[in-house]
């Protein structure tokens, strides 16, 4: 039987971290895995891309026990989430592990012990795991979300539109959160985000400028989301907006191109041009300081400004 959202949350409460012995079992697994993972390399038996647990094990840093408690949602909140969010995203520790693995690799300066508190904006914060972690590390965090336009009923193909293209007459989100003026009156992850008390601002990240002053944040992050904002032809316009809003660093991790888009030559040409522009980024002291091949594509870009 396929467990529903509520059953998954119940299971997480019963077996924290998904390990039958709970957090202590998870912790032991991590400690052993650092060695076994490396032994695979020594035996030349594997050069596989590390999974989330292997990243955490290799780095020797993993989420503390408090994150193994499920999201503290009421039955009504769970019911609302069930209608709007994929099942896999209701497992808090799974969300946390994935974000933790990203952050320790790409934003170690925010994850270190005793890191000075920074102002961080995450675009498309979804379940908020990245923000929960950074809040736990003492940073001041702001999230962003917006009702999405993924359904066939909707006239707006956000992945193909140019930046700042939006028509409230035509563009209806999947769940009816947008009112007749195109203003969001709610969003899919709202019950979950409210259960953990995060500050999430609703605005469409494909429309610039964003509602923030220049240099409002130390760092801006966007994971697996930029491909929903606009056509890759305009990703560089978004990158300029990111570096306007941020003072120190920007991390962009794009999703892999979806299978049905790979055959679209125009889209792929725009995507390749965007990759090229981002890794060559150089403006106002900003430079691309890491360009990563992740999920078999160049999709990780860290921009930073030297002191």
């Amino acid at each position: 039987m396929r467990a529903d959202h509520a059953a998954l949350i119940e299971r997480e409460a019963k077996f924290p971290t998904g390990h039958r012995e709970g957090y202590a079992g998870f912790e032991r697994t991590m400690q052993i895995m650092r060695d076994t993972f490396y032994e695979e390399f020594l035996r030349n038996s594997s050069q596989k891309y590390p999974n989330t647990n292997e990243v955490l094990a290799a780095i020797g840093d993993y989420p503390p026990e408090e994150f193994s408690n499920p999201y503290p949602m009421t039955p009504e909140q769970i019911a609302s989430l069930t209608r709007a969010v994929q099942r896999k995203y209701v497992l808090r520790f799974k969300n946390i592990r994935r974000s933790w693995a990203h952050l320790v690799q790409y934003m170690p300066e925010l994850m270190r012990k005793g890191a000075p508190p920074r102002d961080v904006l995450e675009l498309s914060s979804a379940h908020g795991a990245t923000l929960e972690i950074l809040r736990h590390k003492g940073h001041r965090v702001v999230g962003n979300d917006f009702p999405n336009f993924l359904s066939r009923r909707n006239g707006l193909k956000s992945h193909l539109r140019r930046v700042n293209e939006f028509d409230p007459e035509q563009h209806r989100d999947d769940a009816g959160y947008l009112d007749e003026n195109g203003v969001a009156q709610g969003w899919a992850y709202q019950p979950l985000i409210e259960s953990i008390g995060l500050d999430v601002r609703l605005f469409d990240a494909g429309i610039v400028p964003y509602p923030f002053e220049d240099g409002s944040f130390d760092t801006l992050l966007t994971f697996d989301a930029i491909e929903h904002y606009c056509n890759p032809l305009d990703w560089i316009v978004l990158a300029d907006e990111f570096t306007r809003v941020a003072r120190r660093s920007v991390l962009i991790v794009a999703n892999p191109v979806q299978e049905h888009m790979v055959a679209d030559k125009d889209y792929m040409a725009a995507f390749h041009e965007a990759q090229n522009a981002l890794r060559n980024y150089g403006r106002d002291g900003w430079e691309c300081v890491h360009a990563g091949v992740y999920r078999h594509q160049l999709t990780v870009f860290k921009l930073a400004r030297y002191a």
Partner: protein
Amino acid sequence: MLRLTHAELIEQERLRPADHRNGHAGYVRKIRALRESFFQKFLKRESKAQPSYDEVIAAFDDIPPADLTVPYDLTPEGLDHVSRCIQRKYVIHFKNIRRSWAILLQHMPELMAEDCPPRVVLEMSTAHGATLEILRRKGHQVIGNDFANFVGGAELDSRFRDFGGADLTTARDDHGLHDGSGQVRDWPYRPITESLGLDVRLFDAGTPPYPFEDKSVDTVICLDAIEHYCHPRDWMKVVAEFRRIARRSILLIPNAMPPYAYKDLDYRETVYAFQREIRQFQQDGWHCVHAGINRNQLSVFKLMQIG
């Protein structure tokens, strides 16, 4: 199986540039096709392998130029020298280039960017000099470093000493290039880097201070070499010496722990302690901005002066 000599490998590279039957043009075609087929593997869930160097180059669509496929131009005396002192695989010019190119694209994109400002780069343990050749082509001012090997074939072993410990100049090295008189004149890769006209400074990287003024270079790069300098308990001291010299950034990639070191629990734990310390490093404006898993271990560290 026929095992080619150093000289035969160089001749083979001359006959078969870029290790492709159609030479560099064939290699370029192969890499262009590889970007697509590499990603198709991901889409088909066939492989989640760590990308090979060619796969990284393909994902970036940034290919080393044809003039770097020309074999090393060695005199008979030089060929004899490298045949005695270096592993066969390192005499293949384009293989060395591809490896350095892939590492630089990912971890030092700001030095590989189109029209990037010229920087002063010191590479420790330059060896065949491929990293410096590439950066020189990109318009940077490059300085190398090398020294004879003391890793088992000699009376001293540099890998277990303190930083600033045993004086290597008075000992015989693995290949008999030193006479123990205190005068240091030769090193294994000399014929190759001389043929390339690179500025390589001879000094022992395990003995501070290095012969450079404070903040005299923009970037220090050290690939697969720090484990030869001293015991890992002192690697943070090595990094402190890099920081003294560098103004902007440091890229440090320790080699994979060899089996004998991995089996030594003290050594292994000392490496883990170093990993923990450097990934959380923050001092005098320096931050660890990327902590990467390579060869199934946490072994990529980029430090920079961040704004």
